[in-house]
């Protein structure tokens, strides 16, 4: 497969020429004999460039004869419209015209990974997120990318390369990989389990003994994605820590994502920056587009978009996590407060002849969700944080509860319902027993319906407000104002509605006149309120405290550390630099074919200090990433030229910048 890009142009004077660019090995094959000397010189230059880690291309041209070209064009048109054997006919024609080119020279481009890509990938791996790379580049390029961004590591036990050219070969290679990863696992039976009611087989998560990587080529992937082999492929891939698919077409990218979505109980996120990533972004659960030099195609079809890959870390570990936490707390609390509110009517039914008489004042029922409990819940779901962003970055394991769906599942909902049931029992029967046989201190009535309604609704509001206070773990000024303000609002509105003025305006709408004034001045009533609040809230406190003592979650452990760090500030962090002794470490990728392997392994260009692992001490400094850039990102360049001082601006780079030139826009 020839991989060079050719273009025919007509100069202003009317001369027709063919220009060609491509990898040097390919171009050299098409050159005219007369270019031999130039070829040697160019080869020397290319070696130098490649030695400095630049991306090289060779350029050649040829003048075309008008007649010959028009004839060739005719034949090209025939070949492209023929129904059979179009590919081979076109290939023949291209071979014919790309002959005897004259060498122009070589170019070398410096191509960098974006800042922070290796660190991001490492953090996400710690958060138990599996990362697969789907690229259109060649295998060597993709492998280099894998090493340079920490996906493939030297410590990995083995890296499997699947590049079979027939279905059987691919299947065999996959099986071999599986066997080495899981020697005791049954080969033929896939571990499947039925999802309730959906009749879709899902692949369970398995753990391989050791760390493995998988590299699979596009043509092998085409076989692996067939329905007879896809489960096998998926199983093998999921056993590996890192998967790199190279030479994939945009369609195959989407197919791989779909495969994971279909057979694994996982949420998929696809991130890319070019138009060839659009299908993948659309298919995944969450699509992220990187805006940059490639244009806005990926951005326009994505759910989230930002400019640099490293922002993914913040998106997932900080904002995603907080969002999940807030959503779950909000849902749990909302169900709790409404269930409690409603179950009380159930108990009252036994005492009012099941006539559907409400326990509360009608206005309270209207305003409960609208005014008295709306703002506190809103405040909690806008501002709540369990740990702040710095700690979120340092402990990516905090992301795992979200993956396991711990905070709001059927179990959590059931627990919430039980809690509501208990609270409703307390909220009805304590006021019932306290009021039913008593009177005011001056002998007048306090066991009437209206006083009971007022008492119960006040008890309810106190209980749910205190419960909200327990749920909230981040009391900003806004939250405090909302909670206390809502309680104050309740009393203000109640006293207003039960006043003489409102009654005289619309007597039938405000029948509770005088109730607040006559019952809330009784110590009896307030003692009941205090007792119900204690009985509703303390079991929850006990349960939570016991859980923290007996089986603390990762959240509890991190919050404990936060407290300790606040109490005793940690010693200033020592920057440790782990010297990596690998010979294949590079911070940039090559798109050359064979011939430069020696160059890479010689280590000649590895003069700079290696990228260090991020230290585990709390970093002081930029809160955005928490890591200071090293290596190339810090401004070091192997060519000795000064790097751009402004590293923050978005540069050309992206993970997917490398592509093989297979298109023929003739």
């Amino acid at each position, binding site marked *: 497969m020839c991989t060079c890009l050719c273009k025919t142009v007509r100069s202003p004077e009317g001369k027709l020429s063919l220009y060609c660019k491509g990898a040097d090995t390919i171009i050299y094959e098409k050159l005219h004999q007369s270019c031999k000397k130039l070829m040697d010189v160019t080869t020397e230059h290319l070696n130098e460039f490649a030695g400095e880690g630049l991306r090289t291309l060779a350029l050649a041209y040829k003048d075309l004869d008008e007649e010959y070209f028009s004839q060739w064009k005719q034949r090209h048109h025939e070949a492209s419209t023929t129904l059979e054997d179009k590919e081979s006919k076109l290939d023949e024609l291209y071979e014919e015209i790309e002959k005897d080119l004259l060498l122009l020279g070589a170019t070398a481009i410096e191509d960098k990974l974006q800042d922070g890509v290796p660190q991001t990938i490492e953090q996400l791996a710690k958060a138990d997120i599996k990362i697969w790379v789907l690229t259109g580049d060649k295998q060597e390029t993709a492998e280099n990318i894998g090493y340079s961004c920490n996906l493939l590591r030297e410590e990995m036990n083995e890296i499997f390369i699947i590049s079979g050219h027939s279905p059987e070969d691919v299947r065999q290679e996959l099986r071999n990989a599986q066997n080495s990863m899981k020697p005791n696992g049954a080969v033929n039976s896939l571990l499947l389990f039925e999802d309730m009611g959906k009749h879709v087989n899902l692949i369970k998560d398995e753990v391989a003994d050791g760390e493995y990587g998988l590299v699979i080529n596009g043509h092998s992937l085409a076989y692996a994605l067939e329905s007879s082999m896809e489960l096998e492929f998926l199983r093998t891939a999921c056993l590996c820590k890192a998967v790199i698919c190279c030479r994939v077409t945009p369609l195959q990218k989407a197919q791989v994502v779909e495969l994971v979505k279909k057979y694994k109980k996982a949420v998929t996120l696809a991130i890319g920056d070019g138009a060839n990533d659009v299908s993948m972004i659309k298919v995944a659960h969450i699509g992220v587009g990187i805006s940059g030099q490639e244009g806005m195609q990926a951005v326009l079809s994505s759910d989230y978009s930002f400019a640099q890959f490293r922002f993914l870390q913040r998106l997932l570990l900080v904002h995603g996590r907080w969002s999940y936490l807030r959503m779950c707390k909000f849902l749990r609390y909302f169900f709790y407060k409404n269930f409690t509110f409603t179950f009380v009517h159930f108990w009252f039914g036994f*005492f*009012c*002849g099941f*006539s559907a*008489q409400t326990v509360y004042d009608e206005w309270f029922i209207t305003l409960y969700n609208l005014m008295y409990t709306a703002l506190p819940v809103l405040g909690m779901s806008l*501002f709540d*944080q369990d740990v*702040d962003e710095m700690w979120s970055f340092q402990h990516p394991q905090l992301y795992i509860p979200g993956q396991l769906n711990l905070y709001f599942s059927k179990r959590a909902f059931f627990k919430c319902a039980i809690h509501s049931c208990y609270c409703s029992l307390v909220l009805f029967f304590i006021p*019932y*027993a*306290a009021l*039913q*046989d*008593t*009177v005011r*201190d*001056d*002998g*007048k*009535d306090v*066991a*009437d*319906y*209206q006083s*009971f*309604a007022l008492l119960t609704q006040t008890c309810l509001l106190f209980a749910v407000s205190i419960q909200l206070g327990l749920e909230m*773990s981040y*009391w*900003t*000024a*806004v939250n405090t104002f909302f909670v206390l303000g809502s309680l104050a609002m309740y009393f203000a509105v109640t006293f207003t509605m039960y006043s*003489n003025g409102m*009654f*005289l305006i619309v*007597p*039938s709408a405000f*029948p509770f*006149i*005088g109730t607040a004034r*006559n019952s809330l001045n*009784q*110590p*009896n009533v307030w003692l009941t309120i205090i*007792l119900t609040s*204690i*009985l509703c809230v*303390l079991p929850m*406190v*006990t349960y*939570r*405290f016991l859980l*923290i*003592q*007996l089986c*603390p979650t990762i959240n509890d*452990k991190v*919050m404990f*550390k936060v*407290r*300790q760090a606040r109490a005793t500030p940690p010693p200033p962090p020592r920057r440790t630099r782990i010297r990596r002794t690998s010979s294949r470490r590079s911070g940039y990728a090559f798109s050359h074919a064979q011939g430069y392997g020696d160059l890479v392994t010689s280590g000649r260009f590895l003069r700079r200090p290696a990228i260090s692992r991020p230290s585990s001490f709390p970093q002081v400094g930029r809160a955005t990433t928490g890591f200071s850039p090293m290596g190339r990102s810090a401004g070091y360049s192997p060519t000795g030229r000064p790097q751009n001082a402004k590293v923050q601006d978005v540069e050309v780079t992206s993970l997917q910048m490398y592509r093989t030139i297979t298109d023929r826009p003739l």
Partner: protein
Amino acid sequence: MGKAKDKSGPLARRPDNSAFKQQRLPAWSPMLTANTVLPFFYLLALICMLLGVWLLLTVQSTQEIKLDYTELGNCDQCFQLRKNVSYAAQTCSCKVEFSIDRAFKGDVFFYYGLKNFHQNLRRYMDSRDDEQTLGRNNKLKNPSSYCEPFAKDAEGVPIAPCGAVANSMFNDSFTLTYHPSRSRTIPVPLLRKGLTWYTDKNVKFRNPKTDNLTLAAAFEGTRQPLYWQKPVYDLDPDNPTNNGFINEDLIIWMREAAFPNFKKLYGILNRADASFTKGLPKGNYTIDISYNFPVQYFQGRKVVVLTTLTWFGGQNHFLPIAYLVTSSLILLMAVVLTLAWWKFGKDGKNMKE
């Protein structure tokens, strides 16, 4: 949008770096640690126990006598009489005797009570017209449809006060007599005024405007509720401040009870009388009851209660006992939590990753 500075250039659309927008607001992050939770629990247990003991002592100082007189003594005959609705117009009176061992010191309150009478039934509670009892003239002869079927009588004459609540007003009356010795009887004076909430008597219930007419004339064109023996303007003809809609017995009855077993204030001991300045002395008492209210239809019972009060209310042992029970539960929980913390979580040994 009123932004103070107009940003331009490549960073024009960057959001503000304020603490609010970047979620860096200063905040308090509470956590359930041992040295906040455990002392709190112990303190709360102590407070609840003290409260419980104090309330118990307070409640123990009240004195109460309850008498179920539905079929007691010769009230049984009245009970049987009232079973037959055709004898509703006949009066029936009976006597109930009781004695007090210890004098009731202080104010004594006389209540009548009903058992199994659901004043909290929804349709029953809706069946009233607050605007009519407020004295609004447009509603006097035009009661609200909620009062149906107690809004107009068979001839279409509007009923005042309309509705099922007023219709079922309690109409037994009681007279208390003290027997210091075999031969002597002293009637016990009961104040029948000042029994209602201030807002009820003065704001919620008002008579229709009379304008130099008599009250009876103001109620012209309406008739009394079907189950009543007297029209509303004859409830207390001697006392114009207790007549008509502002009659205290009516007001007290119209304030529906929350539960099927309830008691309502009937009278307060008049301690201006020489014999009863200190309260009710010990000895024998009789109550003469004019037995009118039939209760067998709903398997109800009728009760008479005499009680003294404290700042805490009547004799209701529930709250003191509840506080004591709560305090012991909290103490138990606190001990369990302390053990759990001591064994598992002390010095953060459960927090190692």
